[in-house]
């Protein structure tokens, strides 16, 4: 089961950027900017399907 936490990381220019840390539940993690993570929700449904 995936578990997502958000983490603010201060960048070298002093700004703060929020990251999504996705815990895959098996010791594996994925990290990406929160905005990128949110772009995957809902998933990309723009690709066509057969018969549609």
């Amino acid at each position, binding site marked *: 089961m995936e578990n997502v936490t958000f983490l603010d990381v201060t*960048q070298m220019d002093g*700004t703060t950027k929020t990251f999504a*840390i996705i815990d895959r539940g098996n*010791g594996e993690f994925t*990290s990406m900017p929160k905005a990128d993570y949110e772009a995957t929700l809902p998933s990309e449904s723009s*690709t066509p*399907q*057969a018969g549609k």
Partner: protein
Amino acid sequence: MAISFPSSPVAGTSIYQGGRQWTYDGTTWNLVLGGAYELYWTHTGTGGETTLSGASDNGTTLTYPLGGENVYLNGVLLYRGQDYTATTGSTIVLANPLALSDIVTVVSYPAVQMSSNNIAQTTEPTTYTPGMVWVNTAGNTQGLQLVRWKKTPNAGTTVLSGLADDGTTTRAYTAGYEEVYVNGILIVKGVDYTATNGTSITLTQATVTGDTVEVFNTITMGVTNTYTQSQSDARYIPLSNLGSSGSTLMVNSNASNVVWSSATVSKNFIINGLQEIDQRHSGASTTVNNALTYGVDRWFLYNSGATNATVQRVAGTNTGTQYAARVTGTWGGNYGSRLESNHIAPLAGKTVTFSGTIWGSTSIPTLSTYAIYAGSQDSYATNTTISAASIALTVGNTSTNFSVTFVVPSGAVNGMEIGITGSLGSGVYFDVSNLQLEIGSVATPFSRSGGTLQGELNACERYYERSTPGVAYGKYGQAYYNNSSSQVVCNVEFKTTKRVIPTSIDYANLRIQQNGIGALGTISAVSINIESTTKLADLTVTIGSGATNTLNPIELMNDNNTAGYLGFSAEL
């Protein structure tokens, strides 16, 4: 007709007489080529002679193919076997002696000469001389053949057909090419007889007792291994259709022809078409629900429902390849690859062919190919379907090669997504491999986009790169104290320049270690900083605490196991 040969020829001299070509080889004159012709031999009677042979009135020597002679006495055709006998090919014996000044004419049709001087033979000559034509004569007898049908019909007969008096020759002719003689007199077509169906001849006047009828017909000369003009044209490339400069001739077995192709090495615009590079999963199955999830490199599975579809790299036993990708239902969506705009821009406006090999765990009638192109550069938020790229696939327990040829719209410069779309029931799966997209209308044998295995890996790493040291405490890069006991900064150089600066990182089993101190807490997050480039990742690693501002080196490394990895994604 006597042949007048030059008295002092030189080797190679050719003359044409009587429709035939003769060539002097330095020693003798050889008949090189001769067309169909009639040979006339005439003799003026001296009175009393019955045997005709030798020189004619004008010097021609009597010769004829047996059965191929017509003998006329004062213009009237004589009846073979009755009025004369001709059994030697050089002598004719008349039944009745000639009277003084009778004119005998023998018309014969010698066999057409296609052979002599190594021109026509069963074995192709090993050397040629200018002007030589080789005709393979293996097989049938050649020559212009005159078929004689001779019959003494019953009185009152008007329709002539069936076997001749010899009991073997069947009445057959080519309408318009027959000659009909009654008692040696050539009768007129359309007046004295009709002949239209090729098998029977109808006389205007019925025969009377003792009439003899002869019908002559020439049949097509038989030369083996010849071709009609259209067949011959099909075997040659006309100068008007030589293809574009640098193109190569390619067999198109689907259309039973050959086409010009500009296909070149590295022709495949699809990366990892063999489904062999699997940096993320190393052959493990991945479950896909309501998301676009990458399986093997560059290939994603999109599943429109929360149905636990899976995608996995498997051995290519079913597709005849080393590897294949296996998609297992329940699934509905796409299995595709997004081709970068800069990569596929050369395809815009061109005819391309998408091909691959597919196999199904059972008959699957719900799969087809598809292609779309992006609405803006490398973004598929809006897109356009290329309808011509869609064909239904035949998928079953037999490995099947498929291909679809279509024109890429000229506006398709922002990137293209291509693959297989459809649905699968629970537990039903298909294997696919050999995926290739190339310029041209023919699906050619598969080749890697990257040329070699290493080239293919490097091509994949432009979009996703994973470091897997494979050893406990294997190192990724140097880290630095970041004015915080809970954060360090680490630089990791990419092996391959990325398409864009990666924003997504995946990792497992990592630690931050400082010499003299040991592991610094537990990593809670790894994030990529804005200072990163397409060549180097600048990471912030968040730990519980413990980082100290000493001169002791800090490093990002595997934990105490071999399964650690650090991956960077610049995927589309």
